[in-house]
């Protein structure tokens, strides 16, 4: 699959815009999900994920072929979301948490498209709860926990994506794990 992407990137670099569509559809779920977990808001997440792909396209010539494309793409997406969180003004979103509830937003009132209802309802509740608990972590721990356990990057790759030293990644992942352990111990 890597070879497929490398080939597509080459075509994009040569000016074939349509080859980029394959790159987008290959990574769209991962990047969208990453943005959603970082931002906790579907609308913003879609915006930022689109922006990430557009930036990747515009700057494709600065991408070094010898490196991993996914690392580069995640780096763009992560930087965008972190910027967004910093600039964030207090605002109301459909998917903001409903006051007085835990982990419930307006979207949780809508049907989810991907999982079947019925017997899976309970496990879906749990998954949603875990997602919520992760989203409550401070950004610097959350991003690393997500990249490590949900997107399965190595610590070295995370250090590249976030542009921070490996040692810092390790310290933060320890703290992130401890924080989540306390939050999830009663599950």
């Amino acid at each position: 699959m890597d070879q497929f992407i490398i080939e597509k990137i080459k075509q994009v670099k040569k000016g074939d815009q349509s080859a980029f569509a394959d790159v987008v559809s290959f990574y769209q779920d991962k990047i969208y999900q990453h943005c959603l977990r970082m931002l906790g808001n579907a609308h913003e997440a879609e915006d930022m994920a689109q922006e990430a792909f557009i930036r990747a396209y515009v700057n494709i010539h600065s991408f070094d072929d010898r490196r991993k494309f996914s690392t580069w793409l995640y780096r763009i997406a992560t930087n965008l979301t972190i910027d967004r969180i910093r600039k964030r003004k207090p605002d109301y979103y459909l998917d903001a948490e409903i006051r007085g509830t835990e982990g419930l937003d307006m979207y949780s009132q809508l049907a989810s498209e991907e999982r079947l209802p019925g017997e899976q309802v309970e496990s879906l509740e749990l998954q949603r709860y875990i997602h919520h608990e992760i989203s409550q972590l401070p950004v610097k721990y959350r991003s690393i926990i997500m990249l490590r356990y949900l997107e399965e990057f190595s610590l070295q790759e995370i250090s590249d994506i976030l542009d921070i030293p490996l040692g810092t990644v390790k310290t933060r992942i320890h703290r992130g794990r401890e924080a989540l352990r306390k939050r999830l111990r009663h599950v």
Partner: protein
Amino acid sequence: MKCNKESVELMHKYLDGDLCKEEEIQLRTHLETCEACQHHFHELKRTITLIKSAEHFAAPNDFTQKVMDRLPTEKKRVTYKRWFKTHPVLTAAAIFFVLMMTGMFASWSEDGQLVVSKQEELVIQGDTVIVPEGVTVPGDVLVKNGKLLIKGTIDGNVTLVNGKLISDDETLNGDGLMASAGGVNGELETVDQMFEWMWYQLKSFFSGVFSF
């Protein structure tokens, strides 16, 4: 509770795959005896499993299309740049051509300046270059922006640019110039027009190249 802090550190190293053999044994033997640490370790591992089972999300259906619609159309400049990159030989030829043209125009427009090739035998009077009687000038002669009067002999080609060949008895003997006024042992060429000048430059350039 010092054991706790130390062994928790080891647990995290274990989870990152950073544990060496020695430390692994140390952690294992400690876990066998310490229930609190065992519990902690179990919770950590369980946390990771739980994290991995967090809800998954898929991008909206029309996501790719939306991105493609928002991509900037390629700028002309970019297209040119890429073309230059992919056709280096043509680019080099184009640059060479432009430089040569500007060089030509520059040397053409050095107007009014009398330019003569460097033979000592040539005598210059005002804007007239004279080959004195009985003198043989070796090599090719170039006269630019001036008149040339040949009384002696030139042992080579003569090129007149933007100039005129005159003779003493021009009025008397207009066309018998070569015969009456000394001789030119080579070609005589007069260049008056820009186009001819270019042609001359090209010719001399290529004859220069091929003489190597």
